[in-house]
């Protein structure tokens, strides 16, 4: 193997008292795809941010092509040829897609005049590469769903000339089709001698894509193995540090009475005439391509967006439940986990306790918060979902993405929830925690709740759900049971309404 493209030795980083990286050694070869895995909070994002110049102050040695490499900011890293696609979405809704793609480097004439023609040309080329060739570069970014935003971020990263490309969970919001487009691109880059550091919790992707895989645990690199020959189970054990028992969620015996019945629901930009049923004890999956309308459907049921038509029936009620507000929905026993964690789920600067208790505050009398109970409830959430944090008083922004997600789910455990509406519940959650969450959801089902889970991860749908309903451009395009579900049929259904372009704008 030739000399390392990137060489990291004894890298250390801590936030306050929280030591995140300890004596980390790592090497990235030229022209390889190197996967990096580890449980939530292991330090993957921190590590890659240091490489990309986003966290300049860290101790230890970094070498790029044999030379000392000390990027002071993202620009310096770009100049050295190191580009990163961030885990957190940072698409700016007030700018156009094209402007978002090249924000750091807008093409200009006469020293400051925006060269719109060149901007659009470059944008079209960049969008084309990620399979969004039909998207108008002038579209305001505010009109894009999370999946498309993720693709824009990837396109922006790929548009930079680079020798090292870092992708932090790029597929977390993507479905199978987009993922395949991305992988083809990455292989192509590898062929052109670009080194790729690929962070993901989807272990199944890794064998097919990466050359080597490294495992991070508690800020240390515990192993680097050839990707193709390392089994899923092996990786999980390396990540967890012990033989983790494979928890396969047991299927519920028989679902009970219907709890949630949808009749001809129309809502949002795409959802039309959707009818479905979820029974007590049942977990129903919602699959589909990016932009299929899963999020819009869930939000409409929860009263977060207006319902444009159709009716929702709860339990055995004859009268439809009209969700006039989320407050009414919560009081009626509904719970919702949003896909956009940062904007719709987190109270960033507030503590883990406050974030964990906000859906149900324990009180003495009617109005006074019982702080003891509140702390105890938060501790229970932290324990039940193995939330990694410096303490319950830590602001939740400082937690890693996966651990934030655990708190967002955990906050509902104190309530009697009849219907769980989960939008991408394990986005950015590590394998063992994902199993934990799946087990938790199964347990809720067994306790009699009805669960509707939108996920872009086929394996998650397959592993978790009793039934899977596929949406295609807002209509129901297929329904599978655990027994009949298979990737080919699933994909056919998902594409049904998108005869040509997957983007509705054109």
């Amino acid at each position, binding site marked *: 193997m030739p000399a390392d493209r990137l060489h990291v030795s004894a890298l250390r980083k*801590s*936030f*306050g*008292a*929280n030591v995140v990286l300890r004596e980390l050694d790592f090497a990235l070869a030229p022209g390889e795809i190197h996967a990096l895995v580890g449980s939530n909070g292991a330090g993957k994002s921190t590590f890659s941010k240091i490489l990309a110049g986003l966290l300049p102050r860290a101790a230890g040695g970094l070498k790029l092509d044999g030379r000392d490499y000390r990027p002071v900011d993202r620009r310096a890293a770009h100049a050295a040829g190191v580009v990163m696609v961030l885990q957190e979405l940072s698409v700016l809704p007030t700018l156009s897609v094209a402007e978002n793609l090249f924000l750091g480097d807008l093409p200009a004439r006469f020293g400051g005049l925006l060269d719109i023609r060149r901007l659009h040309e470059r944008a079209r080329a960049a969008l084309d590469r990620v399979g969004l060739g039909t998207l108008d570069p002038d579209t305001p970014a505010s009109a894009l769903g999370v999946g498309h935003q993720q693709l824009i971020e990837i396109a922006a990263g790929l548009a930079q000339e680079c020798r090292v490309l870092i992708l932090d969970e790029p597929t977390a919001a993507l479905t199978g089709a987009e993922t395949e487009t991305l992988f083809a691109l990455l292989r192509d880059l590898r062929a052109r001698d670009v080194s790729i550091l690929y962070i993901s919790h989807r272990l199944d992707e890794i064998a097919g894509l990466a050359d080597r895989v490294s495992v991070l645990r508690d800020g240390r690199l515990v192993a680097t193995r050839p990707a193709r020959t390392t089994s899923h189970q092996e990786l999980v054990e390396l990540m967890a540090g012990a033989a983790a028992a494979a928890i396969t969620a047991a299927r519920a015996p028989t679902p009970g009475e219907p709890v949630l019945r949808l009749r001809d629901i129309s809502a949002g930009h795409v959802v039309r005439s959707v009818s479905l049923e979820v029974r007590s004890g049942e977990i129903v999956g919602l699959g589909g391509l990016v932009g299929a309308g899963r999020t819009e459907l869930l939000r409409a049921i*929860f009263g*977060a967006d207006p319902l444009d038509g159709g009716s929702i029936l709860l339990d055995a009620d004859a009268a439809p439940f009209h969700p006039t*507000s*989320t*407050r009414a*929905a*919560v*009081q009626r026993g509904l719970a*919702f986990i*949003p896909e956009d964690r940062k*904007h*719709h*789920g*987190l*109270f*960033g*600067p*507030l*503590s883990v306790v*406050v974030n964990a208790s*906000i*859906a149900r*505050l324990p*009180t003495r009398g009617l*109005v*006074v*918060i019982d*702080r003891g109970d509140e702390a105890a409830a938060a501790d229970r959430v932290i324990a039940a979902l193995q939330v990694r944090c410096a*303490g319950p*008083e830590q602001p939740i922004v400082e937690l890693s993405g996966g651990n934030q997600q655990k708190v967002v789910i955990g*906050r509902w455990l104190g309530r009697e929830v009849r219907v769980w509406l989960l939008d991408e519940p394990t986005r950015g959650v590590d394998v063992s925690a994902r199993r934990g969450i799946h087990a938790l959801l199964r347990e809720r089902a067994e306790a009699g709740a009805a669960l509707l889970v939108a996920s872009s991860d086929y394996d998650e749908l397959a592993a978790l759900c009793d039934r899977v309903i596929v949406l295609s451009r807002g209509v129901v395009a297929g329904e599978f049971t655990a027994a009949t579900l298979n990737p080919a049929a699933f994909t056919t259904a998902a594409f049904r309404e998108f005869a040509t372009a997957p983007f509705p704008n054109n």
Partner: protein
Amino acid sequence: MPRLRHYSEFLFLALLLAALAGLFGVLSDHFWSVATLQTITNRIPALALAALGMTFVLIAGGIDLSVGSVSAVAGAVFGWCVADHNLSVGVAFGAALTAALGCGLLNGTLVNVLLMPSFIVTLGVLEAARGAAYLVTGSQTKYLGEKLGWLQDSVAGLGLSGAFLLAAGLTIGAQFVLTRTVLGRQMVAVGTNAEAARLVGISPSRIRAIVFALAGGLAGLAGLCHVARLGAADPNAGSGIELSAIAAAVIGGTSLMGGRGSMLATFIGVLIIATLEAGLAHLGVSEPMKRVATGIVIVGAVGAEAVRARLAARRMRLAA
């Protein structure tokens, strides 16, 4: 850790106040006296009450520019009842507070129904309510004499006025509501991230309606304290008080972006502003220099706290 941080912030504010008082004590002969203290405590209630309401609104992510005008409306209604229609003080008190509460509810309703930024809604209400105060009084100051004297008189033995005790008591109450009740927590949640709050079943509109109503009601009380102090209802009362109230809240560490604030700290902010005014008057500083000094103290107080917070964060990072 956040607890501790809280106290050090508090201590810092108290030090700032002490430094200011000390400075004036050195510069002026009679500054340190019971009488000065009384002047300051007399000046405080109206601003403190307005600032409490402002802090509620700011914490919930809004802003209320109308507090000054609303306090004038309350005073005007009180004057109209008592001076023009010979109604009893109790009835007038009730009518005045109802009017102020109404203005607050109007603010909240407009913000909720039109989904407009509160800055602009309350700017509109600032104008309209001032007009209303002029209309109610016929643009004339109404002389009332000692009708609200009980608010102004010092309470047995303490040397502090009823209005001051009311303001101090309400500050403590407001702090309790903010930190210990479900409502307070929901205000913080809505101010931090209204959409996330909505998605856990909190109604941001309900919270907004409540904080604007509180701000209106407290502004009304502020107006009545003002009336008590002047012995007259003046339709121009309280103009510009909104900026002082915001300054007090921000000096006290309340975030203009919502989600963060403390009533006790706002109260210290009010004390700082009142001490500054009293001290400058004591020195008989010229008008231009008063303006310059006020500007410097506002920027300085908030700036010093910002620098302190950054240094503390840095120290913590380095210690780790």
